[in-house]
C-alpha cells in the first residue's frame, strides 16, 4: 500500500511538473454529481487546466473540492489535486483517466455520538470528524461540446478512492462522478 501511495504521489507531481513546461494553458470550471458507493449523493466543484494538448491528446491538472453524504454512516468533505490525460477515441469523445491525492475529513452522519466514562456517566460527544489521506484513481469518458458557442465538456467517471487510515488499515471506496466543465478563458 505504501508503495502504491508513493507511486501515485510521484506520478501526480511528475505529470504536473512535466506539463507546466508548456505555456499553452486553458482553464475550465465545472460542477459534478459525486456519489460514494454509487447512490449516496454528493457534489464536486472542479477547476481544471489543460496544460498540453493536440488534436488527439491532452494533459490536465485538476483540483476538486467536494462532499458526499451517506445517511447514518458518514459525511465526507475533501480537497484533492489530480493529474490526468484525455485521449481522443472518436470525434469529440475522449477516454479520460486521472490520478490524485487529497485530504478527506469524515464526520459521523445521522446520529449523535455518545461517550460513556469510567463511572458510567453518559456524555454527548462533539462530532469533530476524522482526518484521512485520500489517494484516488478515476477513469471514464468525456465529450467536448458547446453551450452558447462556449466550449464545454461533459464527463462520467467512476472513481476509486482510499481512506487512510481506517481502523489501522486503508479503506477502498467506490464512487461515481458525472458533470460538466466550461472553458472560461481563451
Amino acid at each position, binding site marked *: 500500500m505504501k508503495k502504491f501511495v508513493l507511486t501515485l504521489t510521484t506520478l501526480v507531481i511528475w505529470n504536473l511538473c512535466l506539463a507546466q513546461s508548456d505555456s499553452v494553458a486553458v482553464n475550465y470550471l465545472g460542477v459534478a454529481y459525486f456519489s460514494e458507493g454509487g447512490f449516496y449523493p454528493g457534489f464536486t466543484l472542479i477547476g481544471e487546466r489543460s496544460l498540453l494538448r493536440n488534436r488527439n491528446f491532452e494533459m490536465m491538472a485538476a483540483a476538486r473540492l467536494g462532499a458526499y453524504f451517506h445517511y*447514518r454512516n458518514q459525511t465526507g468533505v475533501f480537497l484533492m489535486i489530480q493529474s490526468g490525460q484525455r485521449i481522443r477515441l472518436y470525434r469529440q469523445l475522449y477516454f479520460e483517466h486521472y490520478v490524485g491525492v487529497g485530504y478527506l475529513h469524515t464526520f459521523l452522519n*445521522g446520529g449523535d455520538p455518545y461517550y460513556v466514562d469510567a463511572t458510567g456517566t453518559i456524555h454527548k460527544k462533539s462530532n469533530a470528524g476524522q482526518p484521512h489521506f485520500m489517494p484516488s484513481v478515476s477513469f471514464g469518458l468525456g465529450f467536448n461540446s458547446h453551450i452558447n458557442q462556449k466550449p464545454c465538456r461533459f464527463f462520467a467517471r467512476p472513481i476509486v478512492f482510499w481512506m487512510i487510515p481506517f481502523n489501522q488499515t486503508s479503506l477502498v471506496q467506490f464512487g461515481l462522478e458525472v458533470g460538466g466543465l466550461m472553458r472560461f478563458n481563451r
Partner: protein
Amino acid sequence: MTGRLLILLTIGLCACFDDTFYEGDFFYLVNKDAQMPVSVRGNISSGVLIVFLHGGPGGTALQKIGLKAFNELEKNYGMVFWDQRASGSSQGNSAISDLNLNQFTEDLDKLIDLLRYRYKNSKIFLMGHSWGGCLGTNYLLDPDRQVKITGWIDVDGAHDNPHGDDLSMQFVIEYANQQIARGSEVDFWQYVISWYAANPNFTTDQLEHYSFVDKAHGYIYDPSLADEKFPNYSFSYLFESPANLTASLTNYNSVIKNFIISDIDLTPRMNAIHVPSLIIWGAHDGIIPFPMAQEAFDALGTSVDQKRIVNLANSAHNGFHEEPSAFIEAVVTFVEENN
C-alpha cells in the same frame, strides 16, 4: 420531452428505494478510537430491548436488519443492532492492541449503560450469536454487569473455542469421509482431510476451516428450506442503508487476522452466571456443533428451572434464518416468561 424523461427517471429511482434500514433510533457509541453505530428498532415502548451481539469477530449486526425473524421480534420488542469495534460499518481508527475480549466486553458494557440511559426502565436481554455468544458470556461473568441484564439468549454461541474447534474439525472430517465414500469430489475432500492432518491445532485466522465448514453445510443446513436469502446483499442494503460493504469486508479481514480467539475457554467460570438463559442451537451446526449447547447448559450457574435448550432440528449455525418460526417462538416464550 427531456424534462419528462428526467421526472420519470427520478420517480423510477425513488420507487427502487425503501426505508427498511432507516427506521427507529440511530446513534453512535464512541470509545477508544472506535465509532460504533447502534440502530434501535421495533417496539421500543414495550419496555424490552434485545441486544443482538453479532458473530465473527469482525462480523456485522446491521446486515441482519430486515431478516424475517428479527422483523417479527421487532413487532413485540425493541431490537438493538450494534456493530462492534472495527467490525461491520464501525468507523474510527481502533488500535490493533484493542482487538481483544476485554476491550470488546468493555464496549458492550458502555453500550448497555447508554441504552439504560436512553431507554430508562427497559429490561435488557442479550442475544449472542456465534462469537457474540462468547462476548455475551464473558460480559455476564462480572456480577456488577450481570445485574443490568434480564435474560441471556445464546444462539449457537462460542464459550469454549478449543473444544468447539475440535468438534468442528470432526464434523468436517466426518462429512468428508461420507463424500469420499459416495465418490463425490473425492480429490477435494481428501485434500480437506490432509489439511486437518497438517493443521490439527488450526486457529481462527486460518480461513480454510470456515470454507470447509461452509461446503459441508455447517453454516446453512439446507438452503432450499429457507424462504429468504442469507446473507442478503439486497439493493437496499448495498445502496440505501447505514452499512458500507467495503468497510464491512475490510474490517472483517483485519479483525479475523488480528484477533485470534482460538484459546478462549470460559467454561470453568460460567457457574458465576445466574440470569435466566435460553440456549438455541442448530442440530446440524458445523462450526460450533450441537454438543456445545449441552456444555453451555451444564456450565451455566442459572438454576435448572430458569434455563433451557431449544434444538432447531433443521438448522445449522443460523437458526434465526433457517427456522425463523421456531426461533421466534422460542425467543418470545422466553422473554415473556422473564418480562
